[in-house]
């Protein structure tokens, strides 16, 4: 009877549902962490293409650079290189590479991490050639790495190659033999070793990449060599990535063999993470800003809660081509009118630090408040108001003549901060500021058209140079700088600071540069330094990273 069709349909729906839901995976978990993973799928785990924190976190565990950045001290330690020598002119670096690290892949069939062999059946080891290939791949305009701006100026010939003007052969990088890599830099600097700890400069498996093209990072294709291997990658927002211990990684001082067997990264919104942590299904969780008070008040949660320094500065950029920000006094007045302590304590509350300098205090060669107590910019409503009045009298205008717009990308946190600052400017300076928002793509494209825009800078390598130069305030990168601000004194100080041999000299030079950047001729208003806070389940021994990404091979679980 065809009228019975409905019931058949319903039954079919039930079967489909149950089949679909129950048929899904149920894998054993060891350490489940949502820390610094975000709620979206990890964009990539290709070292040459990575640009965001979650991708870099995973890459740093699957691969090891010539240099390993220590997660607590942010210093350059021997990674895949057992050591390196520098020529007298400070330009040429010779790395000796470990001979005993094989390329591996997880075999889902056997459930084991297996060593890879080449076409002739010989085991493949990571060589100097793999590093040369990897570094050149990151620099290649063909690869089109989003990080090219950061990579290209370092190695001699790199800039020309990256911009399509020079040949690959002219990049000064050479594998002398399987274990010796020789690299000549464009300029001498004490910052250089840190660059070889960056993810783009990892060894990469040419034969695999040639074979599978962009799909080489899929779990069934990838070749890695770090302390962990890739086990599974459930793609999609709300998905996960699982790493399994690589038993073939020879433990070193800087990168020991892992005590944990599996680390599962889950891609969850921090609110959902906390919910899962409280339900006991997550071992390491982030804490949404809105929940911090409750976490601190709870005996159980506060014991699991820890705050460590972050890697980013939150700031507002002033468009120096638009009135009133054509005048340095107006910019400084707007910067001083921001009550930074109110933002960090009342709006944020995780222990974020009010920023008086642009560069993070934890960076190598960054000037810090303790050493320069008078330096940088300070929140001071009275001074801001006075300076603003002075400017207004000078130009013969009143505060109501200005119709300004503050621009930020769509995000609850940015929105909350912007509304707080909107009120501060209105109360202290009497200026009505509109808030405009856009999605990230529009924001990046159009932020240069607004009066003030919100921005953040997170370091790529832990040296102050990365803030002062790569963030775009140096006139070399004027096209990247949406404040349109340049200052030749600033440029000169940054160039000197880069080449200066001792840290003390560099700090002094940078302190002067900071004074220009945030106070004398401000381009921007630094607002606060980020912190990283998280919850750890009992029974987990862990390190607390100062460089955002964790090195899970140093963790342990006893429960």
């Amino acid at each position, binding site marked *: 009877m065809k009228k019975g069709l409905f019931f058949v349909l319903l039954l079919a729906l039930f079967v489909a549902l149950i089949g679909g839901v129950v048929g899904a995976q149920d894998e054993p978990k060891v350490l489940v962490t949502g820390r610094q993973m975000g709620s979206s799928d990890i964009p990539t785990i290709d070292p040459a293409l990575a640009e965001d924190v979650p991708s870099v976190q995973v890459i740093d565990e699957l691969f090891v650079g010539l240099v390993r950045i220590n997660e607590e001290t942010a210093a350059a330690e021997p990674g895949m290189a057992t050591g390196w020598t520098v020529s007298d002119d400070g330009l040429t670096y010779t790395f000796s590479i470990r001979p005993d690290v094989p390329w591996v892949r997880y075999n889902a069939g056997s459930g084991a991490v297996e060593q890879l062999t080449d076409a002739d059946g010989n085991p493949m080891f990571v060589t100097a050639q793999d590093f040369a290939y990897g570094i050149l791949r990151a620099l290649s305009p063909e690869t089109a790495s989003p990080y090219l701006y950061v990579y290209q100026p370092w190695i001699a010939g790199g800039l020309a190659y990256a911009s399509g003007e020079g040949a690959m052969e002219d990049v000064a990088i050479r594998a002398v033999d399987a274990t010796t890599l020789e690299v000549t830099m464009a300029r001498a600097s004490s910052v250089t070793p840190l660059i070889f700890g960056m993810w783009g400069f990892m060894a990469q498996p040419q034969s695999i990449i040639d074979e599978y093209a962009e799909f080489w990072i899929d779990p069934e294709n990838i070749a890695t060599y770090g302390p962990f291997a890739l086990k599974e990658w459930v793609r999609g927002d709300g998905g996960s990535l699982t790493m399994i211990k690589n038993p073939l990684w020879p433990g070193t001082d800087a990168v020991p063999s892992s005590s944990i067997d599996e680390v599962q990264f889950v891609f969850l919104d921090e*609110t959902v993470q906390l919910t899962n942590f409280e339900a006991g299904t997550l071992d390491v969780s982030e804490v*949404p800003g809105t929940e911090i008070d409750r976490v601190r*008040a709870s005996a159980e949660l506060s014991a699991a809660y820890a705050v460590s320094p972050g890697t980013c500065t939150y700031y507002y950029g002033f468009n120096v081509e638009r009135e009133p920000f054509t005048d340095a006094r107006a910019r400084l007045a707007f910067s001083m009118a921001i009550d930074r302590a109110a933002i960090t304590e*009342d709006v944020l509350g995780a222990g974020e630090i009010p920023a008086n300098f642009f560069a993070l205090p934890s960076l190598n060669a960054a000037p810090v408040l303790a050493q320069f107590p008078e330096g940088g910019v300070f929140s001071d409503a009275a001074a801001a108001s006075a300076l603003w009045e002075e400017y207004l009298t000078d130009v013969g205008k009143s505060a109501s003549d200005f119709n300004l717009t503050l621009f930020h990308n769509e995000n*609850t946190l940015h929105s*909350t901060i912007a*509304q*707080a600052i909107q009120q501060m400017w209105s109360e202290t300076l009497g200026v009505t500021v*509109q808030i405009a928002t856009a999605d990230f793509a*529009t924001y990046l494209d159009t932020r240069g058209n607004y009066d003030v825009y919100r921005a953040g800078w997170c370091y790529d390598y832990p040296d102050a140079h990365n803030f002062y130069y790569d963030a775009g305030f140096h006139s070399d990168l004027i096209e990247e700088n949406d404040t349109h601000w340049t200052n030749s004194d600033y440029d000169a100080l940054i160039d000197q600071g880069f080449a200066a041999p001792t840290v003390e000299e560099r700090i002094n030079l940078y302190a002067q540069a900071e004074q220009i950047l945030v106070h004398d001729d401000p381009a921007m208003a630094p607002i606060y330094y980020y912190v990283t806070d998280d919850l750890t389940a009992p029974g987990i021994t862990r390190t607390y990273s100062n460089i955002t990404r964790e090195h899970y091979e140093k963790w342990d679980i006893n429960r």
Partner: protein
Amino acid sequence: MAVVEGNRDLQSSDVVKLETHIKGESLWASAGKRLLRNRLAVLGGIIIILTILLAIFADAIAIKPYFETDLPSGDSAPYWVTQVFTSMVPVENGGYVKINNDYPLGADKLGRDIFSRIVYGTRISLAVALVGPILALAVGVGWGLVAGYFGGWIDNTMMRIVDIMYAFPTLLFIILLMTFFRFSTATPEPGSFAYAMGQLDKSMGGLLFIFVGIGLTSWMQMARLVRGQVLSAREKEYVESAKSMGATTPRIMWQHILPNIMGPLIVAETLTIPQYISYEAFLSFIGLGVQVPTPSWGSMISEGSRAVSSYPNQAIFPALALFVVMFAFNFLGDGLRDALDPRMRGVE
């Protein structure tokens, strides 16, 4: 000639109007009686009237301006709220909630009064509830009228366009449209049309593009309905007679057909009001709604739900407001439908 035609027209339309009036009176009157008997529908109506009053007198009812921040009072709540949501333990009792009885429903992260923001939020929801249907009516009626009246290839083409619009997944299309309207107006030079629209939208707190976005995705049902009505009305005697008396096409459509079909259309559109309210809330929820600091229930729920474990009041009160208003519109609409179509109730 014009005078004569005008006279004739006047006469014939008078007849028609009278006819409708008589017919309509009894229909509406009995429907009204049935509606009043439906207690839940009456309750819905009362709630809607109260909400409208709330929106009109928001300035007087709200205890603070919706944008006024007070950072030190951020996330505070009155004592009674902590009694209702027992997980919200006050600081005095070893918990984390700051008690501040100046805020009847508590304060948000920036120390803004949630009660006042909900009160102002009624304006947004009601504006959408009002303008959404009007837009859909305007576009849909025009479209359906033209298609139905002319018939033939015009009808065919126009209805195929409706079919195509139907093929768009509504929510996805709204997101796409909103992105398009908002951000393609972000760059043009002053003076251009797009720029002017962008400025207008900004001055309306982002409402303009919400109206347009929702309007563009919701007129098709109306167009189909109108076309159907027109097709049947076209055959009716009064149209025939108006035609034979030489009335022009627009005049026939405007003066004869439209008044006759308008009643049911308005009722039909009333039923969709909750949908408009929920679309606005959805858009605000995903950050494509009204611009800050204008309060919208959707954006309040979205922000509040990020803190739902610590401060459930911040999400639940605006959610309750949204629920009550949707509930009222649904009950009223349901009552209206039953009243007009007694068979649906199956009473007789």
